[in-house]
């Protein structure tokens, strides 16, 4: 099932500046796993060490939040769009960019 995963601006630098990635996936989880396999640095930003999606990142299948569907087990179909939406706040100088290592 070809689906499109939209990469939000804050994460594009970890996905070779791609704004979206197409992949074949049967579930949302499959699509995200393929994305983070192709772009390993993305994994740390999307997932915690114990494999859960980070709490400041939301994932939508088309326009539905997967938390209210079947989480990563939500099945996808041809032409679906998966959108990753991290929280953004605009520009206070207090933030320091950190490497996640």
């Amino acid at each position: 099932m070809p689906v499109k995963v939209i990469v939000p601006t804050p994460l594009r630098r970890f996905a070779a500046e791609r704004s979206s990635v197409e992949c074949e996936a049967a579930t949302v989880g499959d699509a995200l796993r393929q994305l983070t396999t192709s772009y390993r640095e993305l994994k740390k930003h999307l997932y915690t060490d114990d494999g859960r999606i980070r709490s400041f990142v939301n994932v939508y299948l088309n326009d539905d939040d997967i938390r209210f569907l079947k989480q990563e087990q939500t099945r996808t179909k041809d032409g679906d769009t998966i959108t990753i939406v991290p929280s953004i706040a605009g520009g206070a100088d207090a933030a320091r960019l950190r490497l996640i290592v």
Partner: protein
Amino acid sequence: MPIPTDTLKKTPASLNKEEILRYSRHLIMPEIGMEGQLKLKQAQVLLIGTGGLGAPLGMYLTAAGVGRLGLVDFDVVDFTNLQRQITFSTQDVGRKKSEAARERLSGMNPQIQIDAFEMRLTSENALELFKDFDVIVDGTDNFPTRYLINDACVLLGKPNVYGSIFRFEGQATVFGYPGGPCYRCLYPEPPPPGLVPSCAEGGVIGVLPGIVGAIQAMETVKLILGAGDPLAGRLLLFDALGMHFREVKLRKNPACQLCGEHRTITKLIDYEEFCGIRGEETTVAVTAGIPEVTPREFKARLDRGDDLFILDVREPHEYQICNLKGHLIPLGDLPKRVSELDTSREIVAHCRSGKRSADAVEFLQKAGFRKIWNLKGGILAWSDEVDPTVPKY
């Protein structure tokens, strides 16, 4: 669903001849008319932040005739703000933002009441400040304040018109609408500090907050009028580069700790601690354990002929603005390019202001580098203290 009329000011309002002429383009619209314009006149809106988002917000709400506008900001106008904070002019640099904005907006519309609150919004003052206003608009630039605004609005039952931006992307919605989700329904926890770069580090295209702030102003007017469909329950996503607007559904989270069925948050908390910022450095000074060298010390060592390897951890486009002829490895690429560095050489790492390079030094120390220093204050401090011909940006 309009704002319940009992939350609007009780004193009956009318429009004088000048107001009727000023707002005539509203009055001739059947969707607004005298009734709508009077609702605007009776409305009290509090803008938190008078920066990039606050600029179009303040201007359009002033132009629309919102009866009372509160402007909350503790900051002063900086030269780098002028690229996007269009309320301010060059002469305002150095002035308090809330006061400069109040003056500009009063000139646009002397008929409305504009109150400047030169203060930092905190858990101690938020509830008291918010209680007299009908709508709160979030034009802030940091996570702790966004959570504070959200929590205060939910506790007081006020709508929170939310907008946020990053580089070329924006988000907008209305939280705290009756029956609708709050910010914590969407994001129960903030990102760890430093994960999402600030405008100073990540940059932002100046027009972007102009668009998102204007959307927030539109939503505020709609809430006051009770017109159209507010963005409550929808998150508007704007990609300026592709010029795409998309929408995703926002649902109230039944497990939300603030507005859910079994809420655990019943009062305001320490938001800096919640966001992990308590104890973080907020100035250019680096954390203990990061060895640093001042620009003058660095210059002295170079003049002496010391064999120092200069590592520049900025981005390529920054290197083009100005550089110290260092070896460029952007911070994000450092883990995979660390083999380009020689542990036997003395390395001085720098960035623009000393923050990213401090992170680089910390990373390299963990990777086994022992002869590594952070240039304190970065290339900005180098320009200030050693070579003023180096442009600051």
